[in-house]
Each structure stands twice: as C-alpha cells, then as structure tokens.
C-alpha cells in the first residue's frame, strides 16, 4: 500500500484511498480535506526534510512524515 510518503518528486500526484485510524489525528486530516478520492500533489520538503508540503483541494497543506504515513494513496 502506498502512502503520501511515497510521493518523492515535486509534482508527483496521488489519489487518496483511506486515512488509517479513528483518532483525533485522523479526524483532523480528514477535516482538512484528505478524504477518499481527493487528489493530492507533492510540492516539496522543508529544508530539514520534514514536514512536507502538499497541494490538496486547491490549497497548500503541510504535514509531518508521521502524519503523511497515515494517508493511503494510489499513485496517478
């Protein structure tokens, strides 16, 4: 299963299939628009490698690797 951490190069895109878990972090991610079928694109990494910047639902979202690993995607 691929997660957001499998997006490696700027511009690479994926379609979200699932957000694992039912805890507050998962809910937060979904509230921010990371729900099934939403498309997401990698914009880049922070200078120290973490967090990561994505484009989703027309806005820029930054996530830590730990959170990105919770979001399952299929690459497109």
């Amino acid at each position, binding site marked *: 299963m691929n997660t957001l951490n499998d997006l490696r190069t700027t511009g690479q895109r994926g379609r979200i299939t699932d957000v694992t878990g039912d805890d*507050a972090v998962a809910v937060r991610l979904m509230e921010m628009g990371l729900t099934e079928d939403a498309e997401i694109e990698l914009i880049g990494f*922070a200078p120290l490698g*973490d967090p990561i910047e994505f484009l989703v639902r027309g806005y820029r979202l*930054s996530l830590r690797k730990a959170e990105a690993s919770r979001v399952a995607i299929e690459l497109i």
Partner: protein
Amino acid sequence: MTATSPSPTVAGKPEGPLTVAVIGNPNTGKSTLFTALTGIHSRIGNYPGVTVEKKIGTFHHDHREIHLVDLPGTYSLSPRSLDEMVSVDVLLGRQADVGRIDVVICIADAANLERNLYLVSQVLDLGLPTVLILNMWDVAQSRGVQIDADQLSQKLGIPVVPCEAHRHRQIDAVKQAILTTAGRQSINPPRVFPACFYEEGRQLQAQLAEWGEPATPFYVAERMLLDVGGQIETSFLRKFSAQLPATLTAARERLKSSGFRVPAAEAKARYAWVREVLSGVMFVPQQRSVTRSDQLDQWLTHKVWGLSAFVVIMFAVFQSISTAASPLMELCEVGQQAVGGWVGSLIPPGPFQSLVVDGVIGGVGGILVFLPQICFLFLFIALLEDCGYMARAAFLMDKLMTKVGLSGKSFVPLMSSFACAIPGIMATRTIENRRDRMVTILIAPLMSCSARFPVYWLMVAAFFPDITWGGGWISLRGILIFVMTFFGAVVAVPVAWLFKKTLFKGETPPFVMELPSYKWPSPRIVLSRVYDRGKAFVVRAGTLIFATSILIWAASYFPGDHTHLYQLQEQVEQARTSLAPELAERDRLQKLQSEQSGRPEQTESLKELEQQLAATEARLEPLNKLVAERNVIAEHLLETSFLGRFGKTIEPTVRPLGWDWRIGVGVLASFPAREVIVSTLGTIYSLGNEVVATDTGLQQALRDSRRSDGRLVYSIPVALSIMVFFALCAQCVSTLMVIRRETNSWFWPLFTFTYMTTLAYVGAFAAYQLGSWLM
C-alpha cells in the same frame, strides 16, 4: 424537521442591539473584516475558565446597534477541548456573557472555497440565520476561479456576499446582509447525512430528555454521536457515566451497520455535499496557474535560500528592535527621571514625596519601559503573520522544535523572548494546541531577555579580567556574556522535555497546517494588533505590576525615619548649586584626561591635568563629604527597612549560594524587574541609587565589600552564582502578570515563579560550589 427549535425572532425587539458572531477558517481575512466593520476599538477579555480571548466590537448601521463577536479561527466546529467548546457555546447562545446570537457571519476564502465550505456546512447545522462572506474575491478572480454567488446563495438558502475586506470593498453590503438576515427565521440545515443519522440524533435527544436533560440542541446530540472522545461526549459522561457509554456505543454500532462509520463518515459526507453544492457554481481552471506567491515560496522554503532568508529576516527583526526600541526605552527612563525630579520639586520631602516619585512614577515607568519592545516585536510578528510568512517560519523550524517535543509554531514566540518574554508569551496565541502553548509559555521566561544584560555586565566587568585573544576580536568578558545569554535557552531544553513528559502528557499533536498565499500586509490590521497588544499589556497587566512596585517600595521605605536623609539631601543640592563651576570644571578635566590617557607623548600634560583635577577635587571636598554621609544614611535606612530585615532573616537560605544579606535584599528588591538589582546594590553600597551597570565605582565597591568577619563578600564563584541565578529566576513581575492574563489563571504564574526560583537556586548553588571547588 429543523435541527433546532426555531429561536424567537428579532421582530419582537425591532430596535434592540443585534449580536452577531463571526466565524471562519484561519487565513480567510476574518480579523481584516472584523476591523473593517468595527474600527480598531473593541473590548478584549477572556471567557471564564479558558484561555480563549473574547473580542467584541460594536458598530451602527441603519440606526441599529450591532455587537460583533469574534470567534477563534478554526477549520471545524467539532470541539475537542474546553477552549474549542467556547465557539459552540457562543453560537448556541449558552455563553452567558455574550447572550443569544442573532446572526452568524461565516467568512470563507473565495480562492479556497472547497475546504472552507466544510466549516460552513457545520455552521449551517446550527440552524441559525447565517450570512456567507466570500472574502478575497479579487484573489480568486486573478486565479481564474469563477463563482456564481447568486446560484450558491440559492443552493445554500442563505445570503452570499462577495467581499474584499482588505480594500474595504463591499463592507456596506455585508452590513446590509446582516440586517436583512436578522429579521429572518432560523434556517433549515442541509441534509448532509443519511436519514438514519438524523433518526439516531433524535433518539439521543429523546433519551437525554428522559434522563432529565431536556432541550438539548440537535447540534449537541449530533456532535456527541460524531466526535468519539470529543468535548461534548466528555462533559455529558460526567453527568450520565452509567447510561451514556452504552447508549452511544449502540447508536454508533447501528450507524456503522447502515454504512455510516463514525468518525470517518462525517468528513466524507460533508465533502461530498460540498462537491455537490459547488458543481455548476464554481469553475476552477484545469491547469492551476503558478502564482507569484508560488514562485516566492519556491525561494523562501528552499533548502539553502529559504534557511538563509529565515536567518536574515530574524536577524533583521532583532536588530531593528534593538536600534528602534532602545532609544525609546532610554527616553522612557529619562522621562521618568525628569518627571520624578519635577514632581519631587513640587512636593516637600517626606513619605508622600517618596511614594509619588519612587513608588508611583517609578512603577508607571517600570510598565512603560516595556512598551516600546512590546510594540516593536508585535509590529514584526503582526507583519510576518499577516503576509503569510509566519506559517513558513513554523514550517522551516518544525523539525528542530520537535526535538524538544514542541512544534515549529513555538519558534517565533521563543525567539521573541530573547528580547523580552512579555511579547513572546503574548505571541503564543498562534499555537492552537493547548499543551504546546502552555509549555512554550512556561519556558519563554528562561530565554535571556534584555533586562538580564545589566546584571551580567555588572558582574562580568567587576570580577573578570579584560583578557582578549586574536587581536582583540575575542574577549573573555564577551565569551562570558555570550554563554550567559544562551544558558537559559540550553536549560529550557530539558525543562520543556520534562513538562511534556509530566504535566502536559499526551499524544504528539498533529502538525497539519495550511500554508496561506503570500499577500501584502494590511497596515490597519497590523497597527490594530499592535494597539490591542500594547493596550492589553498596559491595562490588564499594568495595574498588577504597578501594585507590586508600590508594595516593594513600601517595604524598602518603612519603618525608618527619613528626616535626616532629607536634610542631607537638601544640603547636597545647595552645595551642588554653589559649587556648580567646580563641578563643570571637574567634568571638563575628566573628559580631557580620558581623551589623552594612553598616549605616551602626552605624559607631561597628563601630569598637569592630574594636578588640576586634584585641586578641583579638594575644592569639591565639602560636597563629596555630604554625598558620602547621605549615602551612608540611605544604606542604613534600607538595611533597617522591612525589606532589609527580611533580607537578613533569609540570609541563612542564601548563604549556600555564597551570598550575604545585601545580595539577598538586592534580589528581593528586584522582584518587580531584574535590572533593579543594580540600583539597589548601589544604595546598599552607599553609592546612591543613580548608578548604572557600567559604573566603575559600583564595580569597585563590589570588589571591596567585606563580610562582618572581614572576608571579601564577592569572588568569582559568587559572581557566577549571581549570574546563574538571574539567568534562571523569574524576577520579573510583568512576565508573571502576562502569564496570568494569557492563561487566565493564578496557578500558572505561581507555578512559573516556583519552578524558576527553584531552578535558579539549585543552579546558583551548583555554580558557587563548583566554582569554589575549582578555584
């Protein structure tokens, strides 16, 4: 079926004031709209029992008075803490000090409508008359995003107003929409969820009524079902701990078997609804155009250029604070002395004069002196926030801060604390996670602020030789000051870690953060934030700081009889007037001397100068004698004052730190502000209270000071012990009062004072013992 029972219409009280709540995602220009509607004057307070700021502004439109309640920016209305519960309580009219809400203004970023409508759909579930504002209309247009506002309004069943708040466009349309909506009945919330969910919600409402909880709004029942472990479930569990868990579990199980899995189903259902609402209403260009903001971001978050720009920006902020704020702070001090001198000349010497000059004017001066730093720091913080860079700063620094258990959002508040902890603590409002915010507030006073510098300088200059290496570029004193400056920050690392492991235990909060588009900061917003913060400090913290200053003044003034001191002071003044020419002559000669010293070819004229100086000094002898006598009396009065007696009582406690009672008194007297220790030591060493840290007389007096048994008081270990103590202690009443304001509780300032004083004591003890052992 409406979600809430229809609220009484406003028609019943046609001319009464309206209460309007403003809610929206962060970075939608909510504060810009708020300021555009109400002007910069607003009442700021705290909601009882929580750390949420209450901000209410008032304006008039069409002869109607409208109270605007600013709710914290949020991505969703599903409360997970007491702080987040405030918005729900206000909207449901359950916050007694706000009252019933007549209209809700929901502000959304037109350029980012899809995600913004998530919150809108939750707000609509409340059933209140609602207006949707599509702000930053111009930005959306420039990106090719087209929205049919009329059709959107029809689909949602509420007025939709496009607006450009930062340009003050369409503000009247917003005001008009508020008035029109206020006359309407409550709305029918859209059916976002499958029918089974509404059925469960009604059953839960009925169940609660059966248990003796009638009239629970549908939204509360809805959230109780949807938010597993949320604030509403938690608060109801306290009342119905026996029955509720089983009921909720059963309801959620039933929903799951109907294909509605809590909690994931909510976001899915709402975003599906959003898609449906926007289809045919919003057109987004297929190819997202690369905006100037995107291009700028490529540089500002770049591995090399991004970090360099960050360092340059932070350095520039600091440099401008020291160049811009210090003259103003000096002006404050000079002004305080001038006013004190002038008032002093109007009132005859006595307790009253001392109260006014040393207590009142000194106290006010002690508050105002912080104002330039607070204003300047907030000017920069507001600028960085409003233009969108603050989120980037957090993005860049996050990895570093996670090492301490905090997030990137703590970086700027902590860095600001290096200038002054007060604006730093006030800036923690941007940290939405409570645990992170509390830890940041608690460790912020450990950062070395500018008030510690005079203490370090006095000790370093008095006890450490001026040794330099590398052609004068590296000096021992410079290294010591540098080490002391970062000492507190180094200690803060394990302290923060410990707090995170004990007091503020919990899972690491997610760092899910929007990186908003860059924009030009709005001068109005920036200035209003500076004004708000400055006012909040002076009004809300200032009164308590002032009270403490008066208290410390009284303790150091009473119960001694000051009559003799005042007589001597008068004689000193008289002698100064009659010996004015000699005093001027001495100043001139001393200046010449310092100019010519160090030049071997001037030896002859230097000798001559010294002779002249000695002659002048001889003529000044009567004055010098009077001054010395006055200073001895002042010292004696301080020694026998309540403060002095207390200092002597606690001497056994400070002896392990290598201190005598005099240092103890200095530390006590510096409770209102650290730098006060310099002038207190000046009085104690009979030098008068007008000394500064660079005063060589004070440095000499410290070196010569002896204990009752004749041993020298000060040594290098003692100096180290004092510096370590001041690096770690919480001797700043202003900081403590700001902590009290920001946490809305007396516990945290007391806690901060206790933990920091303990840390300072242990640190000073270790420094003294280690230093003595090494020497």
